[in-house]
């Protein structure tokens, strides 16, 4: 792995917001996890906001349009579970991005480790929640296997997201993980998370 700049820190913003978002999503089944998740998320947010390095202007020319998928869930009233899945996807992809990072300084290492820990926790909490729900619904809907084998809709949305993150990943690889590439990617991820956060929070509150 080539050395990656410390741009990743900015990436955390979205991750944190993802977490923040997720807290609202968790249903009664995950009431306690909800509490912990919100704590974890808040910590991440605080960590992220410490990062105040401005975007280097020289990197602007390498900008690329990643085409953030605007319509991720096809229903007008997406199910809570689908939204959770979306956010699980986002947090795990962002975690992926960070895990490729190598640290430049000891401070950076510590800082990024904490954020990755936070992200990991978010993912784990969400996993637990979703698995719990799955088990419950499997018990209830044993006859309706059709739903489980098919289940196209949620996967569709996740695929959109994956294509998006794929584009980001390819961009990084093509630019050989340069400093500018990282900076751009981070801005993009932050944008992505903000967008979904704003889009889905009202839907979640409605339920």
């Amino acid at each position: 792995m080539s050395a990656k700049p410390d741009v990743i820190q900015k990436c955390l913003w979205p991750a944190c917001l993802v977490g923040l978002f997720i807290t609202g999503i968790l249903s009664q089944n995950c009431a306690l996890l909800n509490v912990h998740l919100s704590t974890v998320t808040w910590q991440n947010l605080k960590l992220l906001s410490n990062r105040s390095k401005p975007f280097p202007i020289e990197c602007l020319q390498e900008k690329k349009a990643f085409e953030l998928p605007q319509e991720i869930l096809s229903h007008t009233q997406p199910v809570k579970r689908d939204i959770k899945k979306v956010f699980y996807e986002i947090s795990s992809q962002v975690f992926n991005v960070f895990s490729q990072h190598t640290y430049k300084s000891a401070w950076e290492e510590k800082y990024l480790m904490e954020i990755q820990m936070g992200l990991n926790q978010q993912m784990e909490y969400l996993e637990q929640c979703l698995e719990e729900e799955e088990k419950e619904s499997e018990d209830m809907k044993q006859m309706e296997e059709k739903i489980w084998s098919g289940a196209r809709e949620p996967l569709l949305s996740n695929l959109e997201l994956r294509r998006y993150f794929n584009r980001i990943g390819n961009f990084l690889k093509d630019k050989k993980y340069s400093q500018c590439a990282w900076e751009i990617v981070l801005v993009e991820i932050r944008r992505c998370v903000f967008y979904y956060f704003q889009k889905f929070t009202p839907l979640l509150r409605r339920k």
Partner: protein
Amino acid sequence: MHNWIELPGCQYITGTTCDFSSVKLSVFEKIQLRIRAEKGNRTSPWHEVGSFIPFRKAQIGPPKVHLKAEDKAIIVNISPPGTKDSLMWAMDILSFTYSVVIWKNSSSVDERTETVYPGGKIYKLSPETTYCLKVKARLRLHRKVGSYSPVYCVNTTVENKLPSPENIEVDVKDQSYVLKWDYTYENMTFQAQWLRAYFKKILGNHSDKWQQIPGCENVRATQCVFPQKVFSKGAYFLRVQASDGNKTSFWSEEKRLDTEMQTVILPPVISMKSVDNSLHIYIGAPRETENKSTSQHYPLIYEIIFWENTSNAERKILQKKTDFIVPNLQPLTVYCVKARAVIEDEKWNKSSVFSDILCEKTKPGNTSITWIIAGVCTALFSIPVAIYVVKGLLRCINYVFFPSCKPPPNIDQCFSEQSLKNLLLSASEEQTERCFIIENSYSLVTVEETSQVDEDHKQYSSQTSRDSGNYSNEDENSGSKTSRELLQQGLV
């Protein structure tokens, strides 16, 4: 129309299968394939394979497994399915979960299935036994289950002279964590290590990432205490090893520590008020100590226990509201209350300690009704009294300030003439008369010759002080005055 591209690795194939793994395509995009047979110059028409998304269709292959045996555990080092730069699972490498099926080689009956992390261990095995296992990977959320790896077998080693510590527990006390474990032998030294939980996900081989817990190196007791600030918020794994100086035991089972789950719930603060024959109880937020983070907003319910001070019979109430009334109690009795907060989740048995005991005496019964009746009666009684008093006062005032001025009725008999009556009755009216002072004419002429006749009167009167001869004193009675006036008028 689509732009059909030649598929590398699938050109001029003589068999009926081809491998196009080398193609760098996006596995999340829909692709369409078409195939035709060729013989010399002749070609068959194209047969189009329905479009598909590679990721959807893809199945998870077997993971690669490397085993390392201890005496009572096996370390399972798992590499994710696919190659390192495989396109298919590039985004999911960290999301794989692995389940292991393990059984004793001798009897395939007692099988066990466990979920392990890569680099994870399977515990509770017997030493010097051959175990066989197979591993499969799955992507839970995509509902993809991979195929099993081939079966791997390994022998557990001879039992180590020193067993590993067991039953690791982590408790919170004040600002420190207390790590406790059990050990069968005495006079041992122990050391404890920690690892960030997420390393298990991202690093296949994380054995070099374990670090010493400060304050837990070479401890003699079966516990060690370290400050909470050693671990920033997150999840960690802890493990303990025993040593007698020469030999060391294998590492204990790893205990997961989630700093967020360790929070201590503080007891609530209760306040009470007695209202008639019931008690109004308020449950307030716990006192927050300085270093504790802000309240976690757990969903809490409160367990309230109260009893009569004299008896021991306790009544337990479970309440979610923080403000409620306990009705129907004995009046003038002392009741005592204590409460604790419990997390509203069956799986999680966490509760705070009990709050301080608060005692309160209930009020005597029916007091309010008595007061109301008394008040009403007093009001009813006092109204006529007040009216009477006011009337009396008004009469007094009228008598003093606005007397009716009627003469005694006898007077009418005495005075029959009208004029005298008038005299008596209108005594307040004073009759004023014009008085003229008589003076010597000499003084008049010499002093004021030119003065007009009208003014003479006035001037005469002003000089009366000099001539004291002819005019009378004022002390004389009115009768003489009136005669004088008549004289004067005659002259002038």
